[in-house]
């Protein structure tokens, strides 16, 4: 594949992966706080529908995004209530919501199927877009894409450079210890689950108002599950998760651009790759093989290596918090 073609693939992939980026950031926040929001598939789908419908009615893309975010937050609130307050299985409630919301989206979305509607206008950045390689790659997109860059950076900064971020990681690791240090675990968990849900809502609207403009039956099918896989693939680290999302975008582009390169190979198969990667990574890390591998390195490098590769989930992920 020629360099120019590669650049195109990358550029398209980055744009197309933007909704996923918002989704994985949201899920990462929620899981960092110790709550799995398994409803991603449904939340994204429903918010795509609702966001588009609202934008259509109000004529304002922004309103669409706001409403989508609110609905996403609401769905997450249900998950939070069942998981945190009622101490039901997070898996059960998330899974049911995933199915329920996707069907609900199709059910209520009938009147707006394939109706042309407003989309996010492109916004090439004045100077940056002329930077040789990076310009076309990063800065000839629209506001939403730039927002996603900012969101990635902010999330990372928040998690690793701020005190509340550290507390967030803490409540996902050892809620009791965090409590002993003055964190209001229950409130914070609600906060981050809801915040994560809002981001997923934005992801949904990002599909229907930008990258897959419009609404059709099961418009965003599959992307929610992918997001869950990518969060694990990203080791609950916003930066790596975002990279995972871009990687998926690239695979998608390859599947279409390079189709004629491999005759007789159904390129759809490429889109399964993230799941295989996820499982392999999980096995590698969960079963402690990674640490065994690392143990062959000198301590200094070992630590760096582990920090780079470790994908051990937040210790308290999925466990209800009982303060004794």
């Amino acid at each position, binding site marked *: 594949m020629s360099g120019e073609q590669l650049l195109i693939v990358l550029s398209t992939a980055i744009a197309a992966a933007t909704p996923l980026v918002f989704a994985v950031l949201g899920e990462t926040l929620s899981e960092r706080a110790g709550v799995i929001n398994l409803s991603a598939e449904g939340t994204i789908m429903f918010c795509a529908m609702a966001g588009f419908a609202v934008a259509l009615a109000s004529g304002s893309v922004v309103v669409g995004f706001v409403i989508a975010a609110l609905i996403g937050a609401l769905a997450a609130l249900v998950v939070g209530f069942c998981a945190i307050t009622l101490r039901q299985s997070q898996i059960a409630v998330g899974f049911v919501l995933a199915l329920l919301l996707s069907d609900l989206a199709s059910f209520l979305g009938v009147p707006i199927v394939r109706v*042309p509607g407003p989309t996010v*206008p492109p916004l090439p950045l004045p100077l940056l877009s002329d930077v040789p390689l990076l310009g076309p790659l990063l800065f000839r997109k629209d506001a939403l894409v730039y927002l996603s860059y900012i969101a990635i950076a902010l999330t990372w900064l928040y998690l690793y450079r701020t005190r509340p971020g550290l507390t967030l990681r803490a409540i996902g690791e050892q809620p009791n210890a965090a409590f002993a240090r003055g964190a209001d675990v229950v409130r914070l968990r609600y906060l981050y689950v809801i915040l994560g849900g809002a981001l997923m809502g934005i992801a949904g609207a990002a599909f229907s108002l930008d990258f897959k403009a419009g609404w059709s039956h099961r418009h965003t099918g599959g992307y929610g599950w992918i997001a869950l896989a990518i969060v694990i693939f990203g080791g609950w680290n916003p930066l790596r998760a975002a990279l995972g999302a871009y990687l998926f975008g690239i695979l998608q582009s390859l599947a279409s651009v390079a189709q*004629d390169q491999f005759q*007789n190979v159904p390129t759809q198969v490429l*889109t399964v790759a993230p799941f295989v990667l996820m499982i392999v990574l999980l096995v590698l890390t969960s079963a402690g093989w990674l640490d065994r591998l690392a143990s062959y390195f000198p301590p200094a490098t070992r630590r760096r290596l582990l920090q780079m590769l470790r994908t051990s989930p937040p210790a308290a992920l999925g466990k209800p918090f009982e303060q004794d």
Partner: protein
Amino acid sequence: TATVTPASPPSPQLQPAATEFRVGMVVVGPENDKGWNEAHVSGAKYVMEKMPNVKFDIVDKVNPGDRPNVKGAQVADDLIARGAKLVIFNSDDFKDDALEIAKKHPDVMVVHVSGDYAWPEGKNYKNQPNLINYMVKMEPGWMIAGCAAALETKAGRIGTVGPLINEETRRYAVASYLGARYCWEKYRQRDPKDLQFKVTWIGFWFNIPGVTLDPTKVADDFYNGGFDVVMNAIDTPEAAVQARKAADAGKAVKYHHYDHPSGCELSADLCIGVHSYNWGLGYLNIIKQVMESGKVSNNWIWAEADWKNWNNPDSSALLYTKGKALSDENSKLLDQFIAGLGDGSIDLWKGPLNFQDGTPFLKEGERATDVQIWYMPQLLEGMEGQSVPTN
């Protein structure tokens, strides 16, 4: 989804009134897809205008993606249970279901659009008296589309968002390529080698999440990849929608739509044109015959365009609507081309033509037979894209 019968009372078991003739239509995709499926629904509406005592029951989205665990045959059974005397399947995907239903309900006429089981000369002839194959000869339409695309492309790069790969779709791709190559050579005086004509197949007639490629993505990759004209060959209008995005982003792109004029309204100023198919005509004709005699004179219908009075919706199976993006001089050239096709002065099914793998398709001067065209085994030399040769 909605039955087109004006507010039929919600009792499914209602017996059709003596005069009323019920037709069931099994539609593979969403009925409002601005493409193939919407075109067939329009056909139904056309019939109902002409014959008020005909009622259509339409079920759309009949595919394993949208309706898991539902088969065309099952839907047809329901429609027949509701009193349908004639059932229409609107996709080649239903060929097995159509045959199954025809066998199961000998008293019901089954119309399968784009199959070949009722074609005595065909390879798969099944002698099933109540099975009708109805198809419109689309190849000229695709040639016109290809020509228009070739006239409009600045970069000399035409991309096609293709559905799944089979004889039918290969035949259309080939037809549009032939049209494109002709106009590229004759009207634009350019070397065919400079024309890049690429087909990317998504795997079905429209997006099925997780199963097909996402046509939105495919279209994006074309536009961003420097293909300034994209031909839509699937049922849904992603090519049109993404064209708008690409144009807004400052790219000089255009698209050519397929099968429903409304597809050209999505991004009007970027639409080169749309070739659409007037299914209503054929339906009307078939239904008339069936209502009179309970059968049709010929179970194999491959309807032609009416070249004499071009674009007459009441006589021509093939219609072509020019879009705003088609420049005036190109529009004139296109008219020449259409006229040529009409009077036979332009016949693109003539040799020499080679297949994609270099093997000969037609020798010098040889003309392709209907059978050769219908069962197009692979793409042609000069085209890019998966071909999946029959073997």
